[in-house]
C-alpha cells in the first residue's frame, strides 16, 4: 500500500474505551501535545456517571473527542476522522460518530467472542453489523503488544495491561506527526518518585509509535500545520479551571480575599479542587457538609468581607435556593456558579445541557431577581467569572454564573492575558458613615448599591437578616416599606444594564435570519453561521453572555432581521424568556435535549428550514 502524508486543515480524533482504560487521559495528552505544537484545538470529554461500569459493556464506555486544526477551531467537531475503540462496546456506541472516510483503530485482543457478545452484538462480525465496511479498519493487537513491550519492565501484569492506552497514544502520535517530548515530560513529572514507571510508560509510548510506523496497515499520516495565532504566550485551559482563575483574578483586583464554600458535585467539582490549590493567592476553600452549607458559609464570609463564591450544578442550585434569597435580601456580594448538567433530578449528570436557565432566573421564593451571566467557551469562563465577581462586589448583590458541563470539561488554547488588561474592582467598603447609627441599607444613587461595613469596624455595628427591613436596617413588615424595598432591589439588578457591554452581531446587521444563542453553544452556532454566510446566505449570529438583565440594545439588534431563530440545549427556556422581555418579536426555536452538544449540521438545517 502506498503511504501518504496528508496535509490537512482539521482532524477530529475520538478516543473510546472502558471507563478504566484511561481514555480521558489519553485524549487530554493528545490534545495538550497538539496545542503545544501550535494547533488550535477544542475538546469534548463524554463519559458515563459510573466510575467503573461493568467492563466491556456499552454503559461503561468513556470517550474523549478532540478537534485539531491549523485554522480557527470553535467546536470539538461533529464526526470524527479517526476513532480509537479499545473494545467492541466502544466501537458499537461510537461507530455512528465516524465519517465514511474515517480510520478506526481497534484492539483486536478484545474482539473475541466474549467481548463481542458482551457489547451486545447479534453476530460475530461487528464491522458488517454496524455497516462500516467502507471505513479503514485497523485491527491491532494492542493488549498483547503492550504485554510484549513491558514483559521485562518488572511491573505487575495488571499495571502492564493498564499501560495499553499509552501504546495507543504512541500510535496516534505517529499518525499525526505529533512530537512526543511534551508527553515524555508529563510522564517524568507524574511518576518522578517511581523511575520504573517512567521508563515503562516512555517505552510503551515509543513502541506504539514505532509499531504504527512499521505496519503497513496505516495508509496515511496527517500533518496539521500550526494555527496562525496572534503573537503571545498561550496555554491550554478547560472551563472549570478558567472559572476558578477568573474568580481568583476578581479577588486580586478587588483586594477582597476569596472564600469558596462548596460541596462536590459533577460536573462542577473541579472548580473547588482548583481553588483549593491556590492558598498562595489567599484563597480559602471550605468543603462543606452539604450544598446548603456551601452557600451559607459563603454568605457568612461575604458578611465578614470576603469575595465569596459557591460552586455547584443544577441539583445543588435547587438546594441553595432559599439561601440565595437570603443573599439577595441581605444585599451581599456573592457569585454562584452553576455548571449545568442534564436534569431533572439526578438526570444524566455527566452530560451537558442548558436546562437550568429557568431555575437561575426564577427559582426562588418571593420577588427575588438575581443577575445571570453565561460563559460561552472554555476560556471565556475566565472573563465571565471575573465580571460576575466585579458586578457582585460593586453592585452589592448575588450574581449567578451559568456554565455547562461541555464548557467545564472542554478545553481550548488561550492567549494568556495580563491582569493589567482588566479593570479595577471597587467594592463599596466603608470605614466610617456620615449618619449615626449606620444605615446598612442606604444606597448610592447610581447603582442603588448599599455600602459594605465589615464586622470589626468601629462604630458601624449593624444587623442584617432575611426579614424585610427599612433602609436603616430595622425590621419592618409595613406594606409600603416592603413594596418599596422589593422595587429598590429589583431596580438595582435592572440598572446593571447600564454597566454591561452592548450586544454585538457576527455578520451583517440586517438580514433574513438572526441566529440567537447563549452560553456554551457559541462554537457550534458560530461555525454553522460562518458556513451559511460562506454560501452567501443572509444569516447573522448574536450570542448572549448577559442574560439578566439583557443588554440595552437587544431590541435594536433583533429588529433588523426578518426571522429570529433561538437555538439552545433545552426545550425553549431562553426563547420563552425573550418572549417576556421583548414581546414584539416572533421567535423560532431550535432545541435539543439529549445531553449532547449541538452538531453544526443541526443548526444549518434549522436555519435553512426557515430561510
Amino acid at each position, binding site marked *: 500500500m502506498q503511504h501518504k502524508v496528508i496535509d490537512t486543515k482539521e482532524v477530529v480524533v475520538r478516543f473510546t474505551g472502558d471507563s478504566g482504560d484511561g481514555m480521558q487521559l489519553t485524549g487530554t495528552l493528545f490534545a495538550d501535545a497538539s496545542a503545544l505544537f501550535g494547533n488550535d484545538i477544542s475538546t469534548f470529554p463524554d463519559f458515563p456517571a459510573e466510575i467503573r461500569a461493568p467492563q466491556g459493556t456499552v454503559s461503561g464506555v468513556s470517550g474523549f473527542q478532540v478537534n485539531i486544526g491549523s485554522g480557527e477551531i470553535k467546536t470539538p467537531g461533529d464526526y470524527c476522522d479517526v476513532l480509537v475503540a479499545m473494545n467492541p462496546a466502544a466501537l458499537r456506541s461510537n461507530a455512528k460518530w465516524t465519517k465514511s472516510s474515517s480510520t478506526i483503530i481497534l484492539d483486536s485482543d478484545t474482539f473475541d467472542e466474549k467481548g463481542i457478545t458482551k457489547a451486545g452484538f447479534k453476530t460475530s462480525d461487528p464491522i458488517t453489523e454496524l455497516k462500516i465496511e467502507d471505513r479503514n479498519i485497523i485491527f491491532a493487537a494492542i493488549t498483547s503488544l503492550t504485554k510484549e513491550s513491558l514483559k521485562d519492565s518488572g511491573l505487575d501484569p495488571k499495571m502492564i495491561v493498564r499501560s495499553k492506552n499509552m501504546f495507543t497514544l504512541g500510535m496516534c502520535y505517529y499518525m499525526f506527526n505529533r512530537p512526543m517530548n511534551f508527553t515524555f515530560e508529563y510522564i517524568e513529572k507524574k511518576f518522578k518518585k517511581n523511575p520504573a514507571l517512567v521508563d515503562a510508560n516512555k517505552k510503551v509510548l515509543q513502541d506504539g509509535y514505532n509499531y504504527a510506523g512499521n505496519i503497513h496497515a496505516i495508509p496515511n499520516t496527517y500533518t496539521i500545520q500550526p494555527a496562525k495565532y496572534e*503573537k503571545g*504566550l498561550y496555554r491550554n485551559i478547560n472551563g472549570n479551571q478558567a472559572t476558578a482563575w477568573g474568580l481568583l483574578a476578581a479577588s486580586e483586583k478587588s483586594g477582597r480575599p476569596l472564600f469558596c464554600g462548596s460541596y462536590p458535585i459533577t460536573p462542577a467539582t473541579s472548580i473547588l479542587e482548583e481553588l483549593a490549590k491556590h492558598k498562595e493567592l489567599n484563597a480559602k476553600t471550605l468543603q462543606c457538609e452539604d450544598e446548603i452549607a456551601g452557600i451559607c458559609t459563603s454568605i457568612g464570609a461575604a458578611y465578614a468581607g470576603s469575595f465569596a463564591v459557591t460552586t455547584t450544578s443544577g441539583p445543588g442550585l435547587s438546594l441553595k435556593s432559599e439561601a440565595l434569597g437570603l443573599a439577595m435580601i441581605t444585599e451581599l456580594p456573592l457569585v454562584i456558579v452553576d455548571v449545568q448538567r442534564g436534569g431533572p433530578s439526578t438526570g444524566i449528570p455527566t452530560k451537558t445541557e442548558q436546562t437550568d436557565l429557568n431555575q437561575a432566573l426564577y427559582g426562588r421564593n418571593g420577588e427575588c431577581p438575581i443577575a445571570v451571566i453565561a460563559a460561552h467557551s472554555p476560556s471565556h469562563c475566565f472573563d465571565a467569572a471575573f465580571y460576575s465577581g466585579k458586578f457582585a462586589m460593586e453592585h452589592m448583590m448575588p450574581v449567578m454564573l451559568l456554565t455547562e458541563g461541555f464548557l467545564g470539561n472542554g478545553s481550548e488554547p488561550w492567549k494568556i492575558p495580563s*491582569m493589567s488588561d482588566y479593570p479595577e474592582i471597587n467594592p463599596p467598603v466603608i470605614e466610617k458613615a456620615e449618619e449615626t447609627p449606620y444605615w446598612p441599607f442606604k444606597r448610592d444613587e447610581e447603582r442603588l448599591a448599599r455600602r459594605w461595613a465589615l464586622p470589626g469596624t468601629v462604630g458601624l455595628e*449593624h444587623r442584617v437578616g432575611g426579614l424585610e427591613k427599612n433602609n436603616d436596617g430595622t425590621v419592618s413588615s409595613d406594606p409600603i416599606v416592603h413594596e418599596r424595598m422589593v422595587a429598590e432591589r429589583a431596580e438595582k439588578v435592572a440598572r446593571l444594564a447600564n454597566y454591561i457591554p452592548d450586544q454585538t452581531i457576527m455578520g451583517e446587521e440586517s438580514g433574513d435570519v438572526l441566529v440567537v444563542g447563549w452560553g456554551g453553544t457559541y462554537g457550534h452556532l458560530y461555525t454553522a453561521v460562518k458556513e451559511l454566510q460562506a454560501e452567501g446566505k443572509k444569516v447573522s449570529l448574536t450570542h448572549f453572555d448577559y442574560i439578566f438583565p439583557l443588554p440595552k440594545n437587544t431590541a435594536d439588534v433583533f429588529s433588523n432581521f426578518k426571522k429570529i431563530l433561538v437555538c439552545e440545549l433545552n426545550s425553549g427556556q431562553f426563547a420563552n424568556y425573550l418572549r417576556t422581555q421583548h414581546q414584539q418579536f416572533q421567535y423560532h426555536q431550535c432545541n435539543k435535549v439529549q445531553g449532547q452538544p449541538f452538531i453544526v449540521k443541526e443548526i444549518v438545517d434549522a436555519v435553512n428550514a426557515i430561510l
Partner: protein
Amino acid sequence: MKYTPQDFKSNQEVKWCPGCGDHAILASVQRSMPEICEALNYTKERFVFVSGIGCSSRFPYYMETYGFHGIHGRASAIATGVKVANPTLTVWQVTGDGDALAIGGNHFIHAVRRNIDINIILFNNQIYGLTKGQYSPTSKLGMVTKTSPYGTVEHPFNPGALVLGSRGTFFARSLDVELKLTQDIMVESAKHDGTAVTEVLVNCVIFNDKTHFNLVDREFRADRTIVLKHGEPMIFGKERDKGLVLDGIKLKVVKIGENGITEKDILVHDAKEENPGLHSMLIDMKFPEYPVALGVIRAVKDSTYDDNVRDQLTEVRSKSTIKTMDDLLKSGATWEVK
C-alpha cells in the same frame, strides 16, 4: 476599654413574650460581655451574633454588636463562614432545639466536629414556639403538642450526647433562671478555643410552660441539679450533703455521712479529661434518678479549624513561587507564538 452591659443593648424593642426564659439569657449574655472583653482584651466591634430562625434567633437584633439573622437551621454554617473569613472576630451563634437539632442538625454536628472557634448558645425549650406549639427533637416521648395530639412516638435527642458524639471539645449546661451561672459559663465559653456549646434549659411560657419545672423551682432546685466545677468534688443538695461516686461502671448518688461515705469518696470533676466516658455519664444524668448536671461539663484542648486554615495558608504562601495572578496565569505548560 471598659464596657458595661448597657453598651451591648441595642435600641430595638425586645419582642419575646412576657415571662419567656429568653429574656433571662439575654440579660446573662449582656452581663457577661464586659467581663469577656476585660478577660480577653476584646472590643465591641469584634463581636458577631449569628442566628437561624425561631424565637431565640431574634437575639442578634437585641445586641448592639454586628449581627446576622439567617435562615432556619443554617446559623452554624453562616457563623462558620464569618469566622473562617475573619478569625479575629468573636462569633456567637444563638439557636434553638428545632433550629440546631432538627433542620440544622447537619450543620450543627459538623461545626462541632471541625471544632471551629465559635460559641453556640442552644436555647432548649423542647417545643417549637414561633410556629405555635409543635413538638421538637428534644420533646419528651409521649408529649402532647399540636402535631402530636396523642403524644409523640419518637425519642428525643440529648444535645450534650450529640456534642460528644461529634467529638465536641466544650459542653456546658445552664437554666434560664440561673442568670449568674449562665453569665459565668459565657465567659468560659469565650475563653475556650474551639466550638463551645452551651445548652440552656429555657421555659416557653405559652406553649410548654413549666417543662423544666421539676428542676428550676427554688424549692428543690439544689437537690435536683448539680453545678459542676472543674477540680471540685461533685457535691450537691440544699444541705451540700449529697455527692456522686462511681459504682462499677455507673454513677451513683450517695449521702455524705451515711454508710461510711466521706467527702474524700466523692468524685472530683475534671472537665479537661479527654476521655469522654465520665462526661458522657454526667451529661446523661436525668431526674429523678440523678441530679441534672449544670456548669461546664467538658472543656478540652484541641486544634481549631480556623487555626488550621490559617497555618496551612501561611505555610503554602511562604513556600510558593506564585505571588500574583499574573504568576499563576503563566505557570505550568505554556507556549510562545512569535
